[in-house]
């Protein structure tokens, strides 16, 4: 077992390209910053340090202050933390729902498959942002509403990928063998379908995670996502847009944080698919 893991690790390191290494490094740093935000940030999130708006960087304020005189550098840590946490919850939820329903549809087929597939078709034919805006009008923005809404939208995409993978797998001989052996339904899903769909699903998880980050940031940027005094990266961009007119680059830092995460994940997914010689989950839909 240990030997097996060691070989896998060696092969993994052999296959790493410079780009993939860089992306992994950036993502690890970002994850660390998100987890350790309260320890790494020099000031507290809401602490007002100066009376000036958009003070230029320097004198203990690494990236200057925001419009209320709070330390932008510290707020970036907390914003990163919130964005990563919320997006992660969205991606996990979307996966739980999308994968279970997708595999179920693939295995059961028939009327169940038809019903869910048509429903998903109808939902996908609907621009995602419109769906989100409608729900937010009815329920108002709060983090649980945002997580469930975006996860719901995302799960339709996961469903399609999981179903397509499942349909390919259920016709294989080993599934038939397992069925003949008398394996139960849950065992089939967990031991036969899931392991064989793992590579494209891992890639899909990366794609859905970036999608969640972009979506929640866009909503927050519009003022319809996370509500102040809480701030994720989208709120930070919104709050600091005025700073551009003061000649600072304040909204650019949170925007670059988002870009660093999403670009790294996308490049990593690209590398991962190439390494495993798998086609993109986007092509499966």
């Amino acid at each position, binding site marked *: 077992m240990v030997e097996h893991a060691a070989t896998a690790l060696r092969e993994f390191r052999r296959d790493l390209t410079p780009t993939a290494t860089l992306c992994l490094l950036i993502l690890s740093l970002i994850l660390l910053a998100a987890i350790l935000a309260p320890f790494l940030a020099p000031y507290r999130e809401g602490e007002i340090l100066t009376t000036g708006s958009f003070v230029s960087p320097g004198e203990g304020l690494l990236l200057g202050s925001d419009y209320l005189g709070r330390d932008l550098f510290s707020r970036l840590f907390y914003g990163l933390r919130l964005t990563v946490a919320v997006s992660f919850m969205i991606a996990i939820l979307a996966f739980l729902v999308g994968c279970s329903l997708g595999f179920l549809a693939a295995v059961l087929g028939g009327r169940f498959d038809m019903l869910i597939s048509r429903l998903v078709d109808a939902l996908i034919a*609907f621009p995602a*942002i419109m769906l989100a805006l409608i729900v937010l009008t*009815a329920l108002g923005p709060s983090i649980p509403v945002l997580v469930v809404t975006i996860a719901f939208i995302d799960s339709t995409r996961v469903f399609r990928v999981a179903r397509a993978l499942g349909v390919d797998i259920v016709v294989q001989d080993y599934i038939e063998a397992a069925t003949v052996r008398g394996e139960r339904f849950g065992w089939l899903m967990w031991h036969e379908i899931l392991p064989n769909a793992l590579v494209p699903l891992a890639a899909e998880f990366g794609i859905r995670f970036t999608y969640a980050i972009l979506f929640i940031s866009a909503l927050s940027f519009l003022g319809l996502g996370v509500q102040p005094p809480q701030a994720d990266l989208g709120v930070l961009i919104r709050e600091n847009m005025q700073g551009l007119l003061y000649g600072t680059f304040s909204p650019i830092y949170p925007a670059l944080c988002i870009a660093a995460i999403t670009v790294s994940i996308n490049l990593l997914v690209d590398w991962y698919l190439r390494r495993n010689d798998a086609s993109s989950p986007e092509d499966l839909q």
Partner: protein
Amino acid sequence: MNILSVIVQRLGLGILTVLIVSILVFVGTEILPGDVAYAILGQGATPELVANIQERLGLDEPAHLRYLAWLGELLRGDLGTSLTNGAVLNDVIGERIGNTVLLAVVTAAIAVPLSIVLGLVASTRPDSAIDRLISTSTLALISVPDFLIAVLLVSLFAVQLGWLPAIANLNRVDGFLEYARVLALPVAALSFTVMAHMARMTRSAVLNVLTSSPIEMAILKGVPKWRVILVHALPNAIAPIVNVIALNLAYLITGIVVIESMFNFPGVGRLMVEGVTTRDIPLVQAAAMIFCSTYVVLNLAADIISLIANPRVRHPK
């Protein structure tokens, strides 16, 4: 099957889709849990105000009757009245829809041809330096949020260089040059994201066609490369490319909502965001119906164009 009957069938499907969309919009805004009247009023809810709003929304009637009434008014072209200020939505939206259409059309006019050319160039020389340049830069572009591009553009062209306005104020604008100046940044920000998606999809669509057997045959016969692409590959790639364009209109719709808000552009997208903030249900319903129906109609058009472009459909056996 006759091509006309196929088209009629697609049109019927399109109408059905719009109907489903209208149900989704209505269900989404009105039947979700929570008393809408309380939600709109928030802490200032008094029993009289709640009753007033419930009456105006007709909440005392059953949902399916309200849906039919709403749909009937929509079909007669009546979008209703705003909840927040009682304005007639036909006027409010009518005033702004032209601006949104202008933004979308200018963006499409720039982004569509450019991205098709980029996709074609990349697909004809797969894995060459230029293909890798196009593929990597478009991957980077689709990974970054559209507002990052917008923020960078504003910071550079509006603040640092001072060449273009950061706010798209169309009120005191006349003459072509003025319009171009005001539209430049929003259009550029929108085009980048849409173009990246479209160029990538065009590339894979054309690559798919280029590796098909009739094209390989043409190459083997020694047909010149430009002839292979323009005469043999392009006609077969029209259908997938048109579909790519239609698919990307979804990004354009999302982009319009974000970019309009960012530049304070007086369009329907920003109006809708304001409607969500003030929980102006009739306004959001109307805007959502406009965006979604446009999307359905354009997808339908793409569908029909690719049907007509497909020789197998045009000349049935």
